[in-house]
């Protein structure tokens, strides 16, 4: 068992790789009333093209299979749904699908081990029938329709379409009503058997646990065979953007926009770069910048502008999202600000403030069992130990950040996505 520690955060993390190949992570929190468990599978909506190792067969799945699997895994052969079983134990359970992983989780104050029984029972025992697959199509169709009416979601997916040529991040995690109608129980079994294997799984627990005991409890519940997962086929995405802009109309009151910059995901020092980009976003359009003040006082923006940096193993991009009556003026002022910063460099005081803010956001992630478990699982799939944030934070210099500014914030890598009222 590996133990890593951070004195400033006053946190310890225990990591173990089991014989079958599952990674176990425990972040003990003695004082927490809640206990949290999450099992992540290294299979997400981007992984729809792969080769089955044994049969040497190439598979191209319809869009939305990872998410469909997530919905269907709760179904049990005895007719029960594991979500209902967990809820009847007073356990709050859920699941989600991202581009690079699928996760099944629960939190509770009581009945933790009964919850753990159920979690590993349904993850390891899929039960798909023609009938239960058909039924799920109606529910997922309504989920897709719900997102279709959300401008914030539309503006995001359009930004992805503008940024990327091939990377499946440009496709809705849930797929489309057409694509999910092509999914059969065979699709689900083939995919399940290819990816739901120990070497592709990680379990994170947080709460009042003794690491050795909880690891033993988890290992006792695992009986899935270890086979080599299918080989993912990823089409290499070049760094050029796909199209400059995508604009659409919806029944909303105010235009909503995203300006996005495409970033090379392959670069070394991923984490250090990520911190530098987060600092830069504060310096460009954070609430204490003159740009933000100018946009706000002139009524160019409404509510908050949300800058984020999203990255995984095969994509990376910066998003600046907001609402405005005049998206063009926001774009002009944003680009001017970036150029000014490149020309004049970063002020020491602003740099210090941005760094402190990033530090605080990071400590906040350790506030409760769910946040900390989610932090560890997301970073596991990025192959990063979250404590390294603090280490890198200490050594990051203004000069380094200025270099990243020049490299990353380039207008030719920028796209615009807007949703306008009719």
């Amino acid at each position, binding site marked *: 068992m590996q133990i890593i520690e951070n004195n400033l955060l006053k946190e310890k993390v225990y990591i173990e790789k089991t014989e079958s190949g599952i990674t176990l992570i425990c972040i003990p929190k003695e004082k927490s*009333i809640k206990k949290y468990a999450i099992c992540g599978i290294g299979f997400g909506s981007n992984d729809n093209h792969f080769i089955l190792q044994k049969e040497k067969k190439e598979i191209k799945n319809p869009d939305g299979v990872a998410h469909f699997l997530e919905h269907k895994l709760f179904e049990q052969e005895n007719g029960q749904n594991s979500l209902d079983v967990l809820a009847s134990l007073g356990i709050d359970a859920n699941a989600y699908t991202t581009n690079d992983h699928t996760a099944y989780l629960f939190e509770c104050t009581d009945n933790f081990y009964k919850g753990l029984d159920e979690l590993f029972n349904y993850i390891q025992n899929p039960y798909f029938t023609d009938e239960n697959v058909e039924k799920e199509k109606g529910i997922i169709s309504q989920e897709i329709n719900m997102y279709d009416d959300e401008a914030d979601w539309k503006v995001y997916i359009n930004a992805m379409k503008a940024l990327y040529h091939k990377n499946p991040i440009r496709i809705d995690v849930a797929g489309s009503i057409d694509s999910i109608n092509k999914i059969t129980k065979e699709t689900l079994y083939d995919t399940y058997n290819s990816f739901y294997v120990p070497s592709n799984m990680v379990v994170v627990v947080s709460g009042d646990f003794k690491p050795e005991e909880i690891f033993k409890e988890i290992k006792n519940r695992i009986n899935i065979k270890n086979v080599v997962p299918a080989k993912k086929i990823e089409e290499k995405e070049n760094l050029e953007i796909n199209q400059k802009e995508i604009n659409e109309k919806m029944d909303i009151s105010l235009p909503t926009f995203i300006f996005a910059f495409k970033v090379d995901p392959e670069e070394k020092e991923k984490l250090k770069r990520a911190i530098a980009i987060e600092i830069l976003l504060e310096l460009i359009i954070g609430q204490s910048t003159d740009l933000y003040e100018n946009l706000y006082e002139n009524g160019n923006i409404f509510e908050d502008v949300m800058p984020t940096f999203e990255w995984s193993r095969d994509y990376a991009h910066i998003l600046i999202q907001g609402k405005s009556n005049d998206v063009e003026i926001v774009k002009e002022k944003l680009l001017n600000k970036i150029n000014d910063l490149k020309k004049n460099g970063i002020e020491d005081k602003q740099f210090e*403030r941005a760094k402190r803010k990033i*530090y605080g956001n990071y400590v906040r992630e350790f506030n409760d069992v769910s946040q900390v478990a989610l932090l560890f699982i997301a970073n596991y799939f990025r192959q990063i130990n979250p404590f390294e944030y603090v280490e890198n934070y200490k050594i990051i210099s203004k000069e380094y950040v200025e270099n990243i500014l020049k490299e990353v914030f380039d207008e030719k890598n920028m796209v615009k996505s807007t949703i306008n009222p009719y």
Partner: protein
Amino acid sequence: MNYIKKEIKDGVNLHLIINDNFKTDYVVFFLTVPLEKETVTQNALIPNVLKSGCQKYPNYKKIVEELEMMYGAEFDCGVDKEGDNLIIKFFINSINDSFLPEKNNNIEKSLKILTEIIFNPLIENDKFKEEYINIEKQNLELLINSQKDDKDEYAFERCINIMYKDSGFGLSKYGKIVDLEKINSENLYKHYKQLIDTAKIDIFISGNFEKEKITSEVETNELIQKIKERKEKININHFKKEIKNKIENPEVKQEKMEITQGKLVIGLDILPNNFEDFRFIALLYNAIYGDGVNSKLFQIVREKESLAYTAKSMYIPKKNNIFIRCGIEIEKYEKTLELSKRLLEEMKNGEFTDDDFEKAKKYILAGINSIEAEQDTQIIYLFGQELSKLPLTVEEYREKIISIKKEEIIEFAKSIQINTIYFLRN
């Protein structure tokens, strides 16, 4: 957890929640006033005008700079509707000093910043600063118009508005554009002074700190010392006084928008009944009917009939209402409505199993158990108790739920009537 309430002066209370389970501390100010047509728009405007700048930090940028130096303290303000009251809230969430590279006195700083923003505004010639009023009026107008952008919330608010018209709970917490037009820097400042002198004020501080030190910090704060004593004038939404009348036919209303998914909202009334106190029975009734994955509504409408992705009901104790909310295909309106009604009938006939009953109890108890697991949930719970004037500890709350009998649910079900059926469609 250690909770202490202390009256600072008439109408002004300090609530301390001492707890070392978390890495952050909260300082929150709640100003509570009756929700009234005449004042709601002015009240909705006030928090954003105050945050624009105060004597000490003349613009928002200066406030943010200070927050960033506190290792990214989070500040926010706004309004909330609680029954027939409007709550104007301001809070700062900061990292506890013990997790910082150096001691920074974050709680003390949060308290000082908030009191400056709320009680020491930027005033020029007995008026708020003109520029700030203009920007914030424009922003509030956009906010009022943007309520239709979240279709689910919009449909819910429309249903409430149809049921209560233009009074109390029926009002939008952001007010109305016609009233916004009448506001200027002079009359808003006049209103502000009255608000500060009359609102019920509750200060919550949650985190890891020394009780005596923080209490004295509050009591010796000059701006807090200056606020006047006041008589609380809030609406007490007592479940016994919210009398609903029997109606023959529910109001049915359909409205159109360019949308893909239809939103069905059904407003239910709880009629007078024989129970001394039915709030906990109502909560359990709601859980069996439509709250959570084991509820009848979720199981039938979503899981069995696959009509919806979202299907839930919520109980509003302050107003003796339950609201059913489903996101469905437009063509499935009649079918979903019929099913929802049939399930209400089933509740009256006692057509739910002991298992359904026990599952719903467990679901509610799990929620109660986790109140203390999150700082903000705990503050909201304790503040809710403060407003209800029927304070209940978490332990008492748990006991009330455990003691409910199945027969009581069936008896209670008879007091449910459909008031309004609202459908947002294309």
